[in-house]
């Protein structure tokens, strides 16, 4: 029981980190703050526009692999890793 709860809490913590970043790059950077961020540029891109049409997608990809990697680590730590 103890173990089960600890495992679930560890999972929730990783999910919270992922969803925080997910929300930040898409909803905050690409939508809510797009106008101020467009004053900065990245190559020929305005930064806010870049997040909306390129950057957020790259971050999403990284997030899923990060989640997968972290969960494998946690699975092993709690002895529930599938061989």
């Amino acid at each position, binding site marked *: 029981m103890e173990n089960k709860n600890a495992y679930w809490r560890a999972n929730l913590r990783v999910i919270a980190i992922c969803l925080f970043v997910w929300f930040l790059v898409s909803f905050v950077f690409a939508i809510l703050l797009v106008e101020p961020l467009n004053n900065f540029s990245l190559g020929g891109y305005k930064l806010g526009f870049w997040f909306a049409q390129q950057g957020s997608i790259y971050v999403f990809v990284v997030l899923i692999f990060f989640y997968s990697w972290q969960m494998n680590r946690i*699975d092993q730590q709690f*002895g529930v890793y*599938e061989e």
Partner: protein
Amino acid sequence: MELQTLTYFVVGLSFALYIGIAFWSRASSTSEFYVAGKGIHPIANGMATAADWMSAASFISMAGLIAFLGYEGGMYLMGWTGGYVLLATLLAPYLRKFGKYTVPEFIGDRYYSQLARVVAVVCLIFISFTYVAGQMRGVGIVFSRFLEVSVDNGLFIGMGIVFIYAVLGGMKGITYTQVAQYCVLIFAYTVPAIFIALQTTGFALPQIALGAEVIDGSGTLLAKLDRSLLDLGFGAYTAPFNDKSMIDVFAITLALMVGTAGLPHVIVRFFTVPKVRDARLSAGWALVFIAILYTTAPAVGALARTNMIHTVNGVEQKGTAYKEIPDWFKTWENAGLIAWYDHNDDGHVQYAAGSAFEGKPQFDGDKRGKHGERLVKNPSEGKPVENVAFANEIYVDRDIMVLANPEIAGLPNWVIALIAAGGIAAALSTAAGLLLVISVSVSHDLLKSTFTPQISEKNELLAGRIAAAFAIGIAGYLGLHPPAFVAQVVAFAFGLAASSLFPVILLGIFSKRMNKWGAICGMLTGLVFTSGYIIYFKGVFIAPTVANIPENWLFGISPEGIGSVGMVLNFVVAYIVSYLTPAPPQEVQALVEDIRVPKSF
């Protein structure tokens, strides 16, 4: 080789490949038919998911949408990719651990209720059919444009191909065919994009080219596009909120993300991998394969818009004489997807802000005007927008942007033939995935579990095949006779998935206290609110009740984005109701504990 012959050759070759794969991977058990025997490698499953996910709309329409929306196009890009983060962290691994065949099955077991299961089946069938009708139409359009068969015949050929591999192979056949289709479609999408990126900027990667300087050194691509659009009376390409408000962009992005995660044909793909950790990893690979197309699309959009302005208005930005306009313009005019009305009567085609026609152009049969253009019955008044020298004289259907792009850029014929094969692959792979979830719901959720529980495995498999055949027939019918609501499909399918299925599945995993009353009330609230709102403004079966304009919308959120409000309502109602009614039985709480870990402690 001539374009026509070459196109037949390339498309024919791709069909032979799909059918060959179907014979090689026939399904022999219900497990193979439903979930490919849970033996698909995570990378292969990622590719199949990407092909399943990227429909005719992603392949054909999305870059065109972005080309005309500019910044706001980002809501589709983020909405249709961000959902995979939700899927990977909140749904896929736990549903894989649950280890059965369908989404309604999970809802039925978790909420110990046949009613919940049947409601879920109804949502699933409605979502999937509206979606599949659009795919069949897409196949028909590609055929009619590139192979010069009628839209209807094109559709029959498409139905035949899907029939062979979906009915024979079930999930197993579909998965391996989708892997092949992914390769065809991504090759077809990126090759022309790379050509055009090179031509315009000298950089091969479209993702870099979009942010690069144009080849003559006269400024960056986006800055130049911004300037020429402003000169023509449009808003700047990169400037936010020209066409939609901030709250609406926010709501639509959220609804598309959550809707993506709640679409049954996407979720069920994660039932096919061997392990829980494969489900997590597979979501990552799926997004990698999707991102290749989705980060290319904005470059295709911006380059296509730039090329179009350049070709139509000419180097001096004064318009091009109709007699000298390139062939692609006339080809698409003949197909009815481009129209021209010479408002200032100078014999030149000009493009600017404002609409050249009252609504969509209505062609006057096949009658021709004095320059040889097709006559249109409903020109607008043709007043130029402030500070622009001429009025807009053309209508360009946004769906042609990807299909016409290689011709606009003057690329070789084999690239154009490739686009045809890619468009068909995108439409077929999505259609097959959707048809499968429909047939599995019928044979497994309705027959096996609800109406005839004593059915043998052999008969269940047969029922699945018959249901798949029927579903293809209905989908074909919907493609031939598109009901008026097909145009509203996107709003509807995503709105319903976001507001009905997603919250219920999520709560089923993350809340042990959630019971059947909460789930059913929540699902119905989301369903009724979202569909009511869409019907109120857009009219499905009945005429819209009020004008679909921002002033009338709730909080300024359009029907496309209302699924996100429906989702919130679903969560709130489910929580309140579940705390007023008894907790779920012990064995259900044990089930929740069980799906949360990959294997027992």
